[in-house]
């Protein structure tokens, strides 16, 4: 099944053994077969891209290499020697450094201190600040960063700068293998150029880099080789120069049957929700969109594209600071969730655990929490009978697998927790429903059921706006897909669009990089590669 060609890495000499070789890596989580016999080779001095859709198995593979997870089967070899799996210390000892998306830094310590935390240069217990300073300065200079930040507190840096610092920290540990997990998602173009220069510098000195990214346009700039994962399997591993962005996108999505494609028609009507020129400084700008009653519109974008922020602005959590929103033709100001709810907007947040559930509380509590006024007597006392019957009703209606309304939500599976949060949005049928990643971390069965609930709701006349980075989901659900890139709506597709086209549009499909990407909204340009 692996189409990995027999030639060694693009830039490595034919004789050198791979720095890292994975053979037959297999991993299951409960019923989910996350990795199915993955083989992977990393040559000395190469930058090797690992791409795949959400859930393809990239992060599981990375966790196994960095020792955070133990594989069920398979072998990891470093320079031909077998590495003990499932141990972060042995991985670190073998020279594997990982930079995760969330910077693991200490805000009150300086950049230099952060770079050396836990392995300070000391003499008699005293940190040799001078020595650390020199090393960090030379490191930052090598990376093309401003060396003056060496003694600045990390809390005084922007998130993007912190990301660069955590990469510098990984560089400083002089790894043989460096894993970068979507390092560019929050960086600006200039910062990305700096990052690329630094990565190239490292490779020249023999370090091998695994580079995970959703931005396919970057691959040609920085990587030598691309390995594509789909459904836990390697579907291709080829030199980057042999692949176009379009080709990679095709490989990622494969030629799956379009499952459960619904054929809906939406009556022409005045939009229930219309935004024009909506913007929020440094996040998104000039967003125009309209959702009609009964219509499902999707905002599709990669991590950091700003799609989620648009939904949050419409719900008033992080309000927009420019532009206008019209609801049923009337101008409205959405400055807080209370404003949004007053105009019939509800929102299913993305991060179930942090933004969604009250996990130590019952299903009934969770559902009723947003409708205390409706489920009360005299607005003062909770009508517990109605609360229970509403919860019981939802348990039956949307098939929440739980013994009863008193069950604690923390004891439910992810899919059922998500249904509970969704039920909260449905108690009073919303005129406008915003959904952010409605099926993230949800098993397949529950996912289908949630999709059905969403479509039913639209059929009943609600306007639905889905924000998702799950492409098949977007295409299956949405009557219209708006692709968000770099905070702007870059393209629009009607029902029936091909996955690869949408993905290419979101990933910035043109050979010249991302600079010219923003602002296009025609579908004709997309797919030219």
């Amino acid at each position: 099944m692996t189409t990995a060609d027999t030639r060694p890495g693009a830039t490595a000499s034919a004789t050198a053994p791979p720095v890292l070789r994975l053979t037959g890596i297999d991993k299951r989580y409960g019923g989910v077969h996350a990795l199915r016999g993955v083989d992977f080779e990393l040559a000395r001095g190469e930058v090797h891209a690992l791409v795949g859709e959400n859930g393809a198995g990239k992060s599981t593979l990375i966790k196994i290499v960095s020792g955070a997870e133990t594989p069920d089967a398979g072998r990891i070899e470093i320079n031909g020697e077998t590495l003990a799996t499932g141990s972060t210390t042995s991985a670190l000892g073998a020279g594997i450094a990982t930079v995760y998306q969330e910077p693991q830094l200490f805000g009150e310590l300086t950049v230099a201190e952060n770079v050396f935390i836990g392995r300070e240069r000391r003499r008699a217990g005293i940190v040799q600040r001078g020595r650390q300073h020199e090393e960090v300065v030379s490191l930052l200079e090598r990376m093309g960063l401003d060396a003056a930040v060496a003694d600045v507190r990390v809390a005084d840096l922007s998130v993007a700068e912190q990301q660069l610092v955590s990469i510098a920290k990984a560089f400083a540990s002089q790894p043989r293998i460096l894993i970068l997990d979507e390092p560019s998602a929050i960086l600006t173009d200039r910062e990305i150029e700096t990052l690329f220069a630094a990565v190239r510098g490292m490779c020249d000195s023999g370090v091998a880099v695994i580079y995970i990214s959703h931005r396919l346009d970057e691959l040609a700039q920085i990587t030598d080789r691309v390995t594509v994962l789909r459904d836990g399997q390697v579907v291709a591993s080829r030199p980057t120069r042999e692949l176009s962005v379009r080709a990679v996108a095709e490989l990622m999505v494969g030629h799956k049957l379009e499952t459960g494609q619904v054929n809906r028609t939406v009556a022409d009507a005045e939009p229930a929700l219309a935004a024009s020129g909506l913007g929020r400084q440094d996040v998104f700008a000039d967003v125009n969109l309209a959702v009609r009653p009964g219509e499902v519109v999707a905002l599709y974008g990669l991590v950091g594209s700003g799609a989620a922020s648009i939904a949050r602005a419409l719900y008033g959590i992080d309000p927009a600071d420019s532009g206008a929103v019209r609801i049923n033709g009337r101008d409205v100001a959405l400055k807080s969730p209370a404003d949004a709810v007053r105009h019939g907007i509800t929102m299913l947040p993305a991060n179930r655990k942090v933004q969604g559930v009250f996990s130590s509380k019952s299903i009934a509590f969770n559902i009723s929490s947003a409708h205390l006024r409706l489920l009360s007597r005299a607005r003062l006392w909770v009508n517990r009978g109605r609360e229970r019957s509403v919860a019981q009703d939802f348990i039956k209606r949307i098939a929440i697998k739980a013994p009863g309304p008193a069950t604690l939500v923390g004891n439910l599976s992810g899919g059922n927790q998500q249904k509970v949060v969704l039920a909260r949005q449905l108690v009073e049928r919303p005129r406008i429903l915003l959904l952010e990643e409605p099926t993230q971390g949800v098993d397949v069965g529950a996912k289908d059921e949630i999709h059905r609930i969403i479509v039913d709701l639209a059929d009943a006349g609600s306007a639905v706006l889905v924000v998702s980075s799950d492409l098949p989901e977007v295409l299956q659900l949405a009557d219209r897909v708006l692709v968000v890139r770099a905070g702007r709506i870059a393209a629009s597709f009607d029902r029936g669009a091909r996955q690869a086209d949408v993905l290419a549009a979101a990933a910035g499909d043109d050979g010249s990089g991302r600079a010219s990407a923003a602002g296009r909204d025609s579908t004709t340009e997309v797919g030219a590669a």
Partner: protein
Amino acid sequence: MTGLVQTVPLRRRRPIARAVEGQELALVVVIAALWLALSFGTSTFLTGSNLRNILFAVAATAIIGIGMTPVIVTGGIDVSVGSMAAVVMVVVAKLVRDAGAPAPLAVLVAVALGLALGCVNGLLVSLGGIHPIIVTFGTLNVFRFVALRIFENKQVAGVPDTLGWFGGGQAGLGLLGVPHAWWLAMVLAALTWCYMRYWATGRHWYAIGNDADAARLAGIHVRQRIVSAYALTGFFVGLAACVLVGSGGLVQQNAGTGLELQVIAAVVIGGTSILGGRGTVLGTLLGALLVGTVTSAITLLGWPSELTELFIGAFILVAVGVDLVRERRRRAR
């Protein structure tokens, strides 16, 4: 926004400025202004004996505060220090009065006992996995019980001034007429300041307060560092108890009650964040000094002494409020 990539120098805090935090500078200015105003407003403020009194009065609070600072920096708190001080005080007082122990022995016993009690707190917090405020509320009661048992229902009267070197009397005056107790506080502050700034293990306290989980991943011995912070507090409580017993005379059964809140007030006014991760002992020393100045000023101005606490409350709110505004502005960037 993209400062890290630019090559022009940053308009950020210079490394030199970092040695003294903004809050500390502000405190120095406030204290200096108060002293200036008081030296004009009263005839007695800027006299040697008054300044001596101020310095001695806040010495014990300052010394305990120096230990409390790392505890709060790691994200914890210790409300048991008042009871802990009572235990050490009664033991030391009885030791010098009944057993006639010499000063070195008394000091040794005091710090050893304080260290042991601090370790109890530290172990319960780090190994027991209990929230620090609950642990120390519990030990506050238990330590007070221990102290009262040792008191045996009588205050300890007629304590000789064996520890007079620490005390507020003539024997306690040191260089420049400044009480030894205050010199001690300054030396301890200087040592702790250096430790927390230059030693790797000292820096780790800050890392733990910022993000304990990330600190563990970075290979920091989190539990050991937390125990060490509470143990250090106990050690300093032992020394502070010597100061409090120093002048001899009377040790009452309610010794040390309410001390914990005074100490926390000094630490917080000194700019240490109660949420952990930030703060210096220099600030704590200045915070204690500010509290002492206000107390003295109110007496000298002939205002009701009860107003002192009103001012302490106000200073706490101002100090933390300024910090909140600064943090918010930083985050908005």
